[in-house]
C-alpha cells in the first residue's frame, strides 16, 4: 500500500511541476521581453508590473471558439496538441533534481535514451498539425519542422553520448553523481552543441523558421484557435523547462554547487535551470531568424563535426586517465 501511495505522490508532484513551471517561464518571457524591447503592453494588465498578463491570456484563450477547418482531417487535427504536449510530461518524470532517491519521479536504467526518444515524439504533434490543417502554410511549417528535427536530432544525440561516455553510465542520476567540476571545460563543446540543437528542436528563435510568423503565419499552428493553440504554446514552454533541466543535469552538474550541495541540492538544479531559461528568452529577443538553408548548414557542417570532435576528446581523456 505504501508503494502505491509513494508512486501516486511522485506522479502528483511531477504533474504539479508540469503545470506550474511552464507558466512561470511564460510569465518570465513576457516580462523579460517587455524590459529588453521597451514593450508597454505586457506591463499594463493588473497594475503593478502587469502581473495579471498571464491570467488575462488564459482567460482570452479559454473564451475563443474552438474551430476545426472544414477541409481538415478532424481526428488528427484534434489529437495533435495532446501529442505535442504529453511527451514533455513523461520526460519530466525522469529528470532528477536532487541527490536523494526522492528527488526524481522515476529512476530509469537508460534515462538518457528515454528522454531523447520521448522528446523526439513530441515533434510528431507539430507534423500532425501541419498536415491535418489542410492549409499550405501549415504544410510548409510541418515540412520545415520535420527537416529541422532530422538535422538536429543527430548532434543532440552525439553530445549526450559524449557525456554518457564520460560518466560511464546512461542513467541520469548516475551521470550527475559522477560529475566533477572539471567536466565543465572538458564537456564545454558538447554542452553548447546540446543546448543549441535542443533550441532548434523546440523551434525557438533564432531557429523558429518552421513557425516564422511573418512569412508562414505560425506554420503548423496557423489554423488552431483557443485552448488547442494554448496547448501548443504550453508545449513550447514545457519544452524549455525540459531542455534547460536536461542541460543542467547532463552538463552543468545538476545538484552540485560550490556550497550547500548536501541539503539544498535541488535549489542548485532549479537555479541553473532558471538561468538557462533566461538565456533562451534572451536569445529570442536578440537574434534574427536563421534562413532555412542556414539552419541546415549550421547543423550538418558545424554542430555534427563539433559533436564528433567532443566524443573523440571525451574518449581520449577517458582512456588517458583510466
Amino acid at each position, binding site marked *: 500500500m505504501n508503494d502505491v501511495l509513494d508512486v501516486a505522490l511522485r506522479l502528483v508532484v511531477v504533474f504539479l511541476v508540469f503545470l506550474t513551471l511552464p507558466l512561470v517561464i511564460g510569465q518570465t518571457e513576457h516580462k523579460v521581453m517587455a524590459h529588453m524591447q521597451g514593450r508597454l503592453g505586457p506591463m499594463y494588465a493588473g497594475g503593478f508590473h502587469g502581473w495579471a498578463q498571464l491570467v488575462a491570456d488564459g482567460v482570452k484563450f479559454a473564451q475563443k471558439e474552438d474551430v476545426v477547418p472544414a*477541409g*481538415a*482531417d478532424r481526428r*488528427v487535427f484534434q489529437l495533435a496538441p495532446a501529442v505535442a504536449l504529453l511527451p514533455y510530461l513523461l520526460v519530466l518524470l525522469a529528470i532528477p533534481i536532487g541527490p536523494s532517491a526522492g528527488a526524481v519521479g522515476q529512476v*530509469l*536504467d*537508460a534515462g538518457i*535514451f*528515454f528522454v*531523447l*526518444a*520521448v522528446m*523526439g*515524439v513530441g*515533434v*510528431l504533434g507539430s*507534423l*500532425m498539425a*501541419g*498536415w*491535418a490543417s*489542410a492549409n499550405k502554410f501549415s*504544410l510548409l511549417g*510541418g*515540412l520545415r519542422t*520535420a*527537416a529541422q*528535427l*532530422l538535422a538536429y*536530432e543527430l548532434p543532440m*544525440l552525439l553530445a549526450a553520448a559524449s557525456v554518457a561516455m564520460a560518466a560511464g553510465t*546512461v542513467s541520469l542520476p548516475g551521470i550527475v553523481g559522477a560529475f566533477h567540476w572539471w567536466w565543465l571545460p572538458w564537456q564545454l563543446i558538447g554542452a553548447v552543441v546540446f543546448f543549441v540543437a535542443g533550441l532548434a528542436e523546440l523551434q525557438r528563435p533564432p531557429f523558429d523558421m518552421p513557425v516564422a510568423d511573418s512569412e508562414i503565419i505560425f506554420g503548423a499552428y496557423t489554423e488552431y484557435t483557443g485552448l488547442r493553440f494554448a496547448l501548443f504554446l504550453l508545449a513550447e514552454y514545457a519544452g524549455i523547462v525540459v531542455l534547460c533541466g536536461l542541460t543542467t543535469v547532463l552538463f552543468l552538474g545538476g545538484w552540485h554547487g560550490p556550497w550547500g550541495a548536501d541539503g539544498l541540492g535541488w535549489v542548485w538544479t532549479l537555479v541553473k535551470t532558471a538561468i538557462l531559461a533566461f538565456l533562451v528568452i534572451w536569445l529570442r529577443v536578440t537574434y534574427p531568424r536563421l534562413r532555412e538553408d542556414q539552419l541546415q548548414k549550421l547543423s550538418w557542417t558545424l554542430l555534427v563535426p563539433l559533436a564528433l570532435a567532443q566524443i573523440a576528446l571525451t574518449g581520449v581523456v577517458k582512456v588517458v586517465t583510466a
Partner: protein
Amino acid sequence: MSLAATAPYGFLSPTGVEIAFLLVGLVTLGAALITVTTRQLVHAALWLVVTLGGLAVEYLLLTAEFIAWVQVLIYVGSVVVLLLFGLMLTRAPIGHSPDADSGNRPAALVVAVGSAGALVWVVTDAFRATWIDLDGPAAGTTGVTGESLFRHWVLPFEALSVLLLAALVGAIVLSRKAKAEQAAGTPSLAKAPGDKEGAR
C-alpha cells in the same frame, strides 16, 4: 539471457505481465493491419507510430528497457518523421489516395504471410526453451545488453555497420550522379522516374 529452465514453466500462466503482453500484442497487431490496409497515406504512417510504440512496450514488458527506448528513438523519432517528411514533400492529400494502390495486394499478402510464418517458426524453434525471470534482476538492462552485444555478437554488429556505411556511400553517389546530370545541361525528363528515385 538464457536463464536455465529449472522451475516448471507453463505457457500463458496468467500473471499480470503476461496478460498485459498479450493485450499490447493484440493492439500492435491491429495497428499493423490498419497500417497496411488503410487507404489514407498519412494515416498509415500514423498507425505505424502506434505499431512501433506497441513493440517498444512489448520490449519494456520483457525488461529490455534499453532496446525499448532505442526503438522509440530510431523508429518513431526518425524513421516515421522521415516518412512523413517524404509524404508531405511529394503527395499527401487529406482523405483517400486512390492512386496509391499498386494492385499487388495478393502478391504482398503471400510474401507477408510467408515471411511472418518463417520468422515465427525460427523464433519459436530457437527460443522455445528460453525463459525470462521477470521477478529476478532485470535481464535486459543496458549493461547486460551491451555486454552480450560486444562480447558475443561483435562480428554481426560490425558487419551491419559496414553494410550501413555502404548504403550511406551509395546514397551519396546516387544523389551526386543526379545532380551532375542536371548540371551537364538539359536534364532529360523522359527518363526522370529512375533518376528521381536516386535523387531522394
